[in-house]
């Protein structure tokens, strides 16, 4: 083997192989980086909401200027409207948002010293619509603890706006979940406190959610006289893409909270851009593959006579092809390893940036992309090996 290698490595053009090597490295790096980046970034745009399922729609009535100054008709849903909605073929379940009708304030603190306080409110939807463990999402009279679900935007506002400008630490969802809040409720001549804790964040509901049981109990306790119709309702549908839903909603003049839409659009563009970048990477890889094959062809061409002699003195085509095959496979493997190294390096750089803005970002795996790289490596290497073998065979058949 050493002797054959000594013989066949003659005429190897270092610049050609270096050209291939770096072009392929660049191509491979781009090919691996684009899907990895897509995977890493995608959750920011299309975070799965673990709390409100995607086939739940939230409806409200349009608020016009007249509503705002109190001159127009109600923007709440009446019993009849809810029944009409429930009777539609696309509707599976309908639930109303119930608001707290008394004054609520909340303060957060460390070691019992209040650091941060605000006026707030609660709303609830029927517990069946909230997709969290019912052990956690539960309140009954006498409990001294209320679970709360916050809109994710609240955390974003704090992290990007407040924390950034005030030089405060950014908070992840996990950390917020550990903070205990003191909730003070006032009404009906009472002024009482209860502990609260955030157990989850939702991108789909723009309100502060508390369990249905808690709202019912607290409304009776602190505001026994008032009863209002819901201004928002939650609707479970069998198929969210059903056209008749949109038609019905338009006809009735309702509004659907489609916060998913923007994210969906962003995800689409993200996918498009990473797709284009990946395509460019593949193109570079393809060109580098072409360079490699040309170099090998040239090399074989220049060594044709020696290869012929080797075949004539009893070397098999496999044995003659092997040094070139090993050479290309070795280079492909080196490219793959370096590309993975580069990927890890570049990724650690951009993930640092992402984490500084989205501290709760889940650190995804790079294994699928490495698997993709290995797959490409295997495919390209097999192709290389086959092409080289065919070239040697054509010399064997004296068509060289």
């Amino acid at each position, binding site marked *: 083997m050493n*002797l054959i290698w*000594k*013989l066949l490595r003659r005429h190897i053009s270092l610049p050609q192989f270096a050209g291939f090597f770096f072009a392929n490295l660049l191509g491979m790096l781009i090919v691996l980086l684009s899907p990895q980046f897509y995977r890493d970034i995608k959750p920011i745009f299309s975070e799965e909401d673990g709390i409100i399922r995607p086939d739940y729609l939230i409806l409200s009535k349009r608020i016009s200027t007249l509503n705002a100054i109190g001159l127009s008709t109600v923007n709440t849903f009446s019993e009849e409207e809810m029944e009409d909605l429930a009777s539609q073929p696309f509707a599976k379940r309908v639930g109303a948002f119930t608001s707290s009708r008394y004054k609520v304030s909340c303060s957060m603190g460390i070691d019992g010293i209040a650091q941060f306080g605000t006026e707030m409110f609660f709303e609830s939807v029927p517990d069946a619509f909230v997709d969290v463990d019912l052990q956690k999402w539960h309140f009954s009279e006498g409990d001294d603890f209320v679970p709360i679900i916050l809109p994710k935007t609240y955390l974003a506002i704090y992290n990007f706006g407040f924390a950034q400008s005030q030089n405060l630490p950014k908070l992840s969802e996990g950390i917020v979940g550990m903070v205990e809040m003191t909730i003070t409720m006032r009404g009906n001549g009472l002024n009482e406190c209860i502990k609260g804790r955030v157990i989850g964040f939702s991108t789909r509901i723009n309100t502060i959610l508390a369990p249905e049981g808690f709202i019912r109990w607290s409304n009776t306790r602190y505001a026994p006289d008032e009863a209002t119709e819901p201004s928002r309702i939650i609707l479970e549908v069998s198929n969210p893409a059903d056209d008749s839903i949109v038609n019905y909603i338009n006809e009735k003049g309702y509004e659907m909270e489609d916060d998913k839409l923007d994210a969906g659009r962003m995800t689409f563009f993200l996918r498009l851009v990473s797709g284009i970048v990946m395509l460019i990477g593949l193109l570079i890889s393809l060109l580098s593959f072409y360079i490699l094959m040309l170099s090998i062809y040239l090399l074989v061409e220049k060594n044709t006579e020696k290869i012929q*002699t080797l*075949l*004539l*003195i*009893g*070397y098999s085509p496999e044995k003659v092809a092997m040094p070139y095959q090993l050479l290309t496979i070795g280079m492909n493997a080196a490219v793959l390893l370096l590309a993975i190294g580069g990927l890890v390096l570049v990724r650690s750089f951009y993930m640092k940036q992402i984490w500084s803005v989205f501290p709760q970002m889940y650190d995804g795996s790079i294994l699928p992309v490495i698997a993709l790289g290995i797959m490409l490596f295997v495919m390209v290497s097999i192709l290389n090996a086959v092409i080289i073998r065919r070239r040697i065979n054509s010399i*064997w058949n004296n068509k060289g």
Partner: protein
Amino acid sequence: MDSIRLDNTLPNVFLARTDIQSDIWRRDVTLEKGMTYLIEAQSGTGKSSLCSFIIGYRKDYDGRILFDDKDSRRYKNNEWTDLRRCHVSLLFQELRLFPELTAMENIEIKNSLTQFKTRKEIERWMEALGIADKMQSPVRLLSFGQQQRVAMIRALVQPFDFLLADEPVSHLDEINSKVMADIMMEEARRQGAGIVITSIGKHMNLPYDKTLCL
């Protein structure tokens, strides 16, 4: 392999010719293992072509070449490889040595296929042929006569049933020619192989069983 049969064989380039006078072309000739043949030829009568046909390097001939009654046109790649590695050894007229390798490496590259000879045996042959001091010299620096001897040894470091030598002594003096003939005969006898020597004039002194005119 016990025989090489040339059945009505003729190089394609001669197909148009009607005046072929030959003991081989367009005849039915069988070369037997264990026998020694001299094929005498004029230039341009297809002597090297014959060697190329037998070794499977070229197929531009009419008629058939059979190894133990098997038509060589039906040989697959691996059968040819096996034939070249273990059954038929060819000493090329143009030698086909690798100029960038040393004399020893040129022999080793062939010997490594079957490990047929030990390094000692190879060195002994080189000594006998007077090229022991050239062992580690790049073969391109050797004279043609010296290269011819290296090529001879390379042809002998494999098992074979037939040894084809295409003008093996064209550039050797009498003494070296004699030494080479002895080594060749000894190795062929040891293996019980047939020897086919081609020559356009000057030829090795061997006890030929048959002389054929191409």
